[in-house]
C-alpha cells in the first residue's frame, strides 16, 4: 500500500507513449487479466479442495469428501482468491512481498482508452466508479427480475408456478442482491467517481486497494446467484438469515454466509479508503466546513461501514461454523443463545440502513442546491445532523427485535432512540425544502428525482416512526407494512437518489448529455407505478398479510393482483432508464464541462475529467454552495503559490 503521491510519480510520460497492455498472445493467459483468471480460478479451487480432503483424511474425519466443506473452502475462499490473483489484483503486492524492487507505477493501470480497459484491474478512481455503477445496475436488473417473478406468483393466492422453496429463495436473493450488490456499492461507485474530484485530489489514497475492493464485488454477486444451483435451492431464510433456520436449511445458506464476507470486505476497504482520502488529501483551503455535503455524507457513511460491518461478518461466520464445524453458537441444545444472532446481525444491519441512505442524502444536497440556485440552508447543521444519525444509528438496533422475545427492559430505551432519529433526519428534510424556498428551480430530471425522494422518503420515514412505536410494531412487525416501509425508504429513498445522482453526473462521467424528455418520462412512470406498487402494501400489512408468504387469504387477492400489475409497470420504467442511458452514452450530444453551472470542484474540469483530474491541485477559497453571492467562488484552479496553508 502506498499513497497516491507515491504511485503517480513515474518515469513514463502519459499519455503520449501509452501502450495498452494487450500484448502478444501468451500474455493473454499469463499476463494479468481475465484470461489468466480463467485458469487460476479452477486451479485454486482444486488446491482448496486438496487441502480440505487432505486434512480430513489425515485427521481421519469421515467422509474425506464432504462436499459442503469442499464447496465452502475450495469454492468460496480459494477460488475467489485465485480469480483475484489471475485478474492481477495482487500483482503489485506480490512483487513487494517477494522483496523484488517494485515496478515504478507506469500508469498502465490507469485510465481507460477502450471498453476493454473496464475489464482489467484499473487503478483510476473514475474507471472504478463506472465499473461499480455498471456492475451494480446489472445486479439491480437481476434482483428486480426476481421481484417480477415472485410478484407474478403473488398475483393470486395459492401456488401458481413456483414452489415454496424457490419462492423463499427468490425473495431472499432479491433482497440480498438489492442491498449488498446494488444500493451499497452503487453509492460507493458514485462516490468513487465524484469524491476525489470534489476534494481536489488526483485519485483515492490507495488506488490499488480501491481496485481490489471493486473486484471483490462480482465475486459476492456470483456467489449469491450460484446458490440457485446448490442442492436444495437458493438460501431461503430471508436476507436477514435468522438462525437457527439458516443453520438447518439447505446448503444454499452457506452461499449467503460467505458471499456477505466478500461484499463486506469490499465495502470495508472502500470505506477505509474514503476516510483516508477525505482526511489526508483535501485540496489546500478545503477545511471540513468547506467540504461539499456529498463528501460529508460519505465520510459519515464510511465511519459506519468501518465500525459496523465486522458485525455482520461475525454473525455469518457463526452461522457458518454452526453448520460446518457443528459448533453451537445459536443452537440451544448445545448451550447456544438463539437471539444472539439477531443482536449481532442488527448491530450491523440497522446502521446499514443508514449506510444505504446517508450517501443519498449527500447526492440530494448537491442536486437541490445546484438546481434551486441557492446555498444549502443551514449547511453546518446539515453536516452535524449526519453525525447525529451516525451516533444514534448505533443505539437502535433492537427495534428490529421488539417482538423477538428479547429482554423487555430494552424495548423502551430502544424505542426512544429510534424515534429520536426523526430529529436529525427532519433537520435534513426541512433544510432541503427551505433551500427550495424562493430558489430559481430548474426542474431537470435529477431535480425531479431529488424532489421525489424528499416526499417519498418522508413517507418511508414516517412509517418508520409507526414501527418505532413499540405497540404499533407489535401489530405490524413481519407484515407487508414492513415491506412497504422497506421499499419507501430503499426505493423511494436510496434508489431515487441513485437515479438523481446518475442523471446529475452523467455528463461528467460520459462527456455526453442524457435525453431530458426520456428522463422525465422515466421519472413520472417510476413515481406513479412505485406508489401504486408499494403504498397499498401498508394496508395489506395492517389488515393481516404477513411477509415472506407465497399464499395468503383470498380476501387480499384483488389488491395483490393490482400490486403485481403496478410492479410490472415499475419494471418497465427501468427499461426506459436503461434505454436513455445506453443511447445517450453512445451518441448523446457532447456535454460541456459544467452544464449545471455548479460550484463544486468536479464541475470545474472538462467532461469527462482529464486522466489525472487536475493539472495542478486547486486552491479552495470558499464554501461549496455560494450561489447568488456576488463574486463568490468555491475554488480557483491555478493555485495561488504564496498561500501557506497549515495542515489540519
Amino acid at each position, binding site marked *: *500500500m*502506498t*499513497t*497516491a*503521491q507515491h504511485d*503517480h*510519480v*513515474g*518515469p*513514463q*510520460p*502519459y499519455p503520449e507513449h501509452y501502450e495498452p497492455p494487450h500484448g502478444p498472445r501468451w500474455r493473454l493467459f499469463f499476463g494479468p487479466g481475465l484470461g489468466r483468471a480463467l485458469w487460476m480460478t479452477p486451479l485454486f479451487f482444486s488446491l482448496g479442495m486438496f487441502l480440505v480432503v487432505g486434512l480430513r483424511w489425515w485427521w481421519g474425519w469421515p467422509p474425506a469428501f464432504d462436499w459442503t466443506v469442499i464447496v465452502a473452502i475450495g469454492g468460496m475462499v480459494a477460488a475467489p482468491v485465485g480469480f483475484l490473483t489471475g485478474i492481477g489484483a495482487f500483482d503489485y503486492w506480490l512483487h*513487494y*512481498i*517477494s*522483496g523484488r524492487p517494485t515496478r515504478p507505477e507506469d500508469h498502465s493501470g490507469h485510465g481507460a482508452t477502450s471498453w476493454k480497459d473496464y475489464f482489467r484491474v484499473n487503478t483510476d478512481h473514475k474507471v472504478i466508479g463506472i465499473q461499480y455503477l455498471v456492475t451494480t445496475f446489472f445486479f439491480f436488473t437481476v434482483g428486480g427480475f426476481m421481484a417480477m417473478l415472485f410478484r407474478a406468483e403473488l398475483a393470486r393466492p395459492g401456488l401458481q408456478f413456483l414452489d415454496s422453496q424457490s419462492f423463499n429463495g427468490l425473495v431472499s436473493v432479491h433482497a440480498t442482491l438489492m442491498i449488498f450488490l446494488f444500493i451499497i456499492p452503487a453509492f460507493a461507485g458514485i462516490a468513487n467517481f465524484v469524491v476525489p474530484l470534489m476534494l*481536489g*485530489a*488526483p*485519485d483515492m*489514497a*490507495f488506488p490499488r486497494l480501491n481496485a481490489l475492493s471493486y473486484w471483490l464485488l462480482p465475486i459476492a454477486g456470483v456467489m449469491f446467484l450460484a446458490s440457485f444451483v446448490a442442492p436444495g435451492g437458493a438460501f431461503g431464510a430471508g436476507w436477514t438469515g435468522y438462525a437457527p433456520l439458516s443453520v438447518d436449511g439447505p446448503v444454499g445458506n452457506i452461499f449467503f454466509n460467505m458471499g456477505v464476507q466478500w461484499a463486506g470486505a469490499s465495502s*470495508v476497504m472502500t470505506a*477505509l*479508503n474514503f*476516510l*483516508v482520502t477525505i*482526511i*489526508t*488529501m*483535501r*485540496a*489546500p483551503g478545503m477545511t471540513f466546513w468547506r467540504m461539499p455535503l456529498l463528501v460529508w455524507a460519505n465520510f459519515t457513511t464510511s465511519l459506519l461501514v*468501518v*465500525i*459496523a*460491518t*465486522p*458485525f455482520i*461478518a*461475525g454473525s455469518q461466520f*457463526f452461522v457458518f*461454523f454452526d453448520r460446518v*464445524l*457443528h*459448533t*453451537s*453458537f445459536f443452537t440451544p441444545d*448445545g*448451550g*447456544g*443463545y438463539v437471539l*444472539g444472532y439477531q443482536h*449481532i446481525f442488527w*448491530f450491523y444491519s440497522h446502521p446499514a440502513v443508514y449506510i444505504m441512505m446517508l450517501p443519498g442524502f449527500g447526492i440530494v444536497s448537491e442536486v437541490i442546491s445546484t438546481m434551486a440556485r441557492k446555498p444549502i440552508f443551514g449547511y453546518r447543521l446539515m453536516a452535524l445532523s449526519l453525525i447525529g444519525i451516525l451516533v444514534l444509528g448505533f443505539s437502535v438496533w433492537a427495534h428490529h427485535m421488539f417482538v423477538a422475545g428479547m429482554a423487555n427492559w430494552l424495548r423502551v430505551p430502544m424505542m426512544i432512540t429510534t424515534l429520536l432519529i426523526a430529529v436529525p433526519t427532519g433537520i435534513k428534510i426541512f433544510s432541503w425544502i427551505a433551500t427550495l424556498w424562493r430558489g430559481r428551480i430548474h426542474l431537470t430530471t435529477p431535480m425531479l428525482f431529488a424532489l421525489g425522494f424528499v416526499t417519498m422518503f418522508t413517507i418511508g420515514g414516517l412509517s418508520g416512526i409507526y414501527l418505532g412505536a413499540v405497540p404499533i410494531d407489535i401489530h405490524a412487525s413481519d407484515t407487508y407494512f414492513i415491506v412497504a416501509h422497506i421499499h419507501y425508504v430503499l426505493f423511494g429513498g436510496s434508489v431515487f437518489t441513485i437515479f438523481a445522482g446518475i442523471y446529475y453526473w452523467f455528463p461528467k462521467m460520459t462527456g455526453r448529455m442524457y435525453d431530458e424528455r426520456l428522463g422525465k418520462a422515466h421519472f413520472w412512470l417510476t413515481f406513479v407505478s412505485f406508489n401504486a406498487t408499494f403504498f397499498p402494501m401498508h394496508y395489506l400489512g395492517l389488515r393481516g398479510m404477513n411477509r415472506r408468504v407465497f399464499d395468503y387469504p383470498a380476501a387480499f387477492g384483488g389488491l395483490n393482483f393490482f400490486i403485481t400489475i403496478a410492479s410490472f409497470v415499475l419494471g418497465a420504467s427501468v427499461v426506459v432508464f436503461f434505454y436513455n442511458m445506453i443511447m445517450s452514452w453512445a451518441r448523446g450530444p457532447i456535454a460541456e464541462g459544467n452544464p449545471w453551472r455548479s460550484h463544486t470542484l468536479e464541475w470545474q474540469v472538462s467532461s469527462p475529467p482529464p486522466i489525472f483530474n*487536475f493539472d*495542478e*491541485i486547486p486552491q479552495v477559497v470558499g464554501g461549496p454552495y455560494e450561489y447568488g453571492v456576488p463574486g463568490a467562488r468555491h475554488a480557483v484552479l491555478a493555485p495561488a503559490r504564496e498561500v501557506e496553508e497549515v*495542515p*489540519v
Partner: protein
Amino acid sequence: MTSHAEAAAHHHGPPIANQSSRVDARVLGMLLFIASETMLFGSFFTVYFFVRVANPDAPSTWPPPPYHFPVFVAGVNTAILVTSSFTMHWALQSIKRGNRPAFLAGMTLTFLMGLAFLLTQLVEYLHVGFNTSSGAFASVFFGLTGLHGAHVFVGLTLLGMVLVRGFRGHFSPQHHHGVELPGIYWHFVDVMWIVVYSAVYLL
C-alpha cells in the same frame, strides 16, 4: 522514488496531492483497519457474552465440567507473545537508528516467537480434550482463539515480508514504513491476545 527523481521533474503524471493532515495516510489506513478488526473481535466477544451471561441456561462454571482450559500453557504462550512485542519495538528502533544487525536480529526473534505461539496453540487444540461440537463453551473457545490465531498468521505473513525485504537491505533510517506498519499490526495482535486470554481462560 528517489531513483526517478529526475524523471519526475518533468513527468506528465498527476499533480502531487495536497497533504491536508499531519497524519500519514498509510498509518491512518492501518489504524482504521485495526478499528475494524477490533469490531470483528467485538462481535466474537458479544457472542461470548450471550453464551455465557445472557443465556438463561448458561453453565455456572466456566468451562462446564468435566472440561478444563490449558491455562498454564496459554499463560506461557502469553509471555512469549508479549515478549515478541518488545523485540518488535526494538527492531523498529534499531532500523530507525541505522543499526541493521540489531534490526534483523529483532525481526527474526519476533518472527520465531510468533511462530512458536502459533504452533503451541495448534498443539494445544489437539490436546484440550474437546472439539468444536462439544457445546457452546467450546464454540466460544475455538471461535475467539481461532480468530486470534488467524490474526497471528496474518501478522506472521507481514513479518515474513519484512524479513525478506530486510535481509535484502530494503530498509534504512529514512525508509522504514514497511517495518512500522506491520509493527503496529503486531502490537494490535498482541494486545488482543491479552484480552482474549483474560476473557476466555482467566475470567
